[in-house]
C-alpha cells in the first residue's frame, strides 16, 4: 500500500453530495474512481468519517480501552480501503458485514499478540488518526449527580454494580435479591431515565 493512496487528514469535510449518499453507494463509487484521484480521496475520507466512530464503539465494547479502540479503528479502516481498492469486496451492500468480520479478526489477532498490527500502525497509522471530537460525549458531573438523585436507591445500587463492579446480571440479582429478568428491566429503565434526564439538562440548561 502506498501512502499516497490513503485519504489525507486535511480533507475534513466532504462535498455535501457525498454526505447524503448511502455507505454502499460510496463504496460503489470508490470501486470505480481512479486511484489517487480527488474523488477517490473524498470518497475514502467520507467512508472513514462514517465508519470510524462505529468501529470505535466496537473497540470500546470489546477491548475496554480507549487507546486500543483507536488502534482498532485505524487498522480496520486500512484493511477495508485496501480491500476496496483491490476490488475484492464482492458486494458493497455487505460492507457492514465485512467491517464486522475485520473487527473481530483484528481483536482476535490482538489478543493473540499479533505483531503485524504494530508494523502497520508504525508505517501508516497516523494518516487515519480519528478526530478527537469522536470520543464518547463527555457528561457533566453536576448534571449526572442531579440525574442520579432522581433514581431510586435500588436503581443507583444497580448502576453501581453494573458499571463500577461490572457484575453480571445473575450476581446483581443475588445482591439485590430480585430475579435476573428484573435486574435487566430495572437496568435499562434506569439508564433510559438517566439518558433522558441528561439530554433534558443539555437542552434547557438545568
Amino acid at each position, binding site marked *: 500500500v502506498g501512502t499516497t493512496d490513503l485519504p489525507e487528514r486535511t480533507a475534513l469535510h466532504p462535498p455535501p453530495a457525498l454526505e447524503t449518499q448511502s455507505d*454502499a453507494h460510496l463504496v460503489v463509487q470508490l470501486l470505480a474512481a481512479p486511484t489517487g484521484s480527488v474523488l477517490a480521496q473524498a470518497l475514502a475520507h467520507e467512508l472513514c468519517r462514517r*465508519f470510524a466512530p462505529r468501529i470505535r*464503539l466496537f473497540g470500546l465494547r470489546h477491548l475496554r480501552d480507549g487507546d486500543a479502540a483507536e488502534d482498532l479503528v485505524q487498522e480496520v479502516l486500512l484493511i477495508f480501503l485496501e480491500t476496496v481498492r483491490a476490488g475484492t469486496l464482492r458486494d458493497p451492500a455487505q460492507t457492514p458485514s465485512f467491517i464486522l468480520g475485520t473487527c473481530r479478526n483484528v481483536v482476535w489477532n490482538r489478543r493473540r499478540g499479533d505483531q503485524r498490527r504494530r508494523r502497520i500502525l508504525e508505517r501508516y497509522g497516523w494518516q487515519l488518526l480519528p478526530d478527537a471530537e469522536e470520543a464518547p460525549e463527555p457528561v457533566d458531573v453536576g448534571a449526572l449527580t442531579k440525574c442520579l438523585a432522581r433514581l431510586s*436507591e435500588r436503581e443507583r445500587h444497580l448502576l453501581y*454494580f453494573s458499571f463500577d463492579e461490572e457484575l453480571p446480571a445473575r450476581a446483581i440479582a443475588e445482591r439485590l435479591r430480585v430475579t435476573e429478568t428484573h435486574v435487566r428491566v430495572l437496568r435499562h429503565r434506569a*439508564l433510559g431515565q*438517566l439518558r433522558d434526564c441528561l439530554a433534558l439538562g443539555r437542552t434547557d440548561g438545568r
Partner: protein
Amino acid sequence: MTAGLAGRAVCDEPLSWETMVAYWLGDLPEQDEWKAEEHYLGCQQCADQLFRLAGVAAALRAWHRSGRGQVVVTEAALAALRAAGQQLLELRLTAGQTPNQPFPPEIDFVVARLAGDLAAVERLDLELSSGDGLPFYSVRDAPFDPASGEVLVLCERHLAASHSTLLFRLHLHRAYGSVSTADYLVSA
C-alpha cells in the same frame, strides 16, 4: 434497515434501548451480539444512540470511582479507590463501643467497617447521623454480603470531620418481620 444504493440508509428497525444496554454490558447471547454489531456498524442512527450510552457508561464508572457514587461499598470498590491514589482511613467498629479517632487532613475517605452477624439478615437499612441521632443520610435496602460479617460504609473526610461524633445505625431485617438495630459510634 432500508439501505438503497442511491440514498443514505434510513433505519426502520432500530436496535432497542434494552438491546443496546444488554450489548454494552456483555449480557447478550453471542448470536444476538453479532446481529447488533452488524446492525450498528451499518447504521449511523443506532451508532449515535450507542455512542450516547457509551458516554453515560463512562461517566457513571468515573463517578463511582471518584468515591461520590456509593455510601455502602464493597472491597472491590475500596481497592479501586486505593489504586487511584485515594487515601483511606479504615476503622473497624463494633456495636456499642465508641472509639476516639481523629481524621487527619491527608486522608480522602473514612471507611467504617461495621462488624456484626449478618448471616440471617434479609434486608439492611443504614442511617448516618451526628451524635444527636438525627440522620442526615440514609440508605434503604443497602446491598451487602451476608458472609463477610461486616458492612463497609464510605464517607468523604470532610463529611466525617464536620461532626464531633458520627453514628452509624443499622436496621437489620430478618425473617418473619423481625428487625433489630445496631449502633456504631466514632468520636473525632
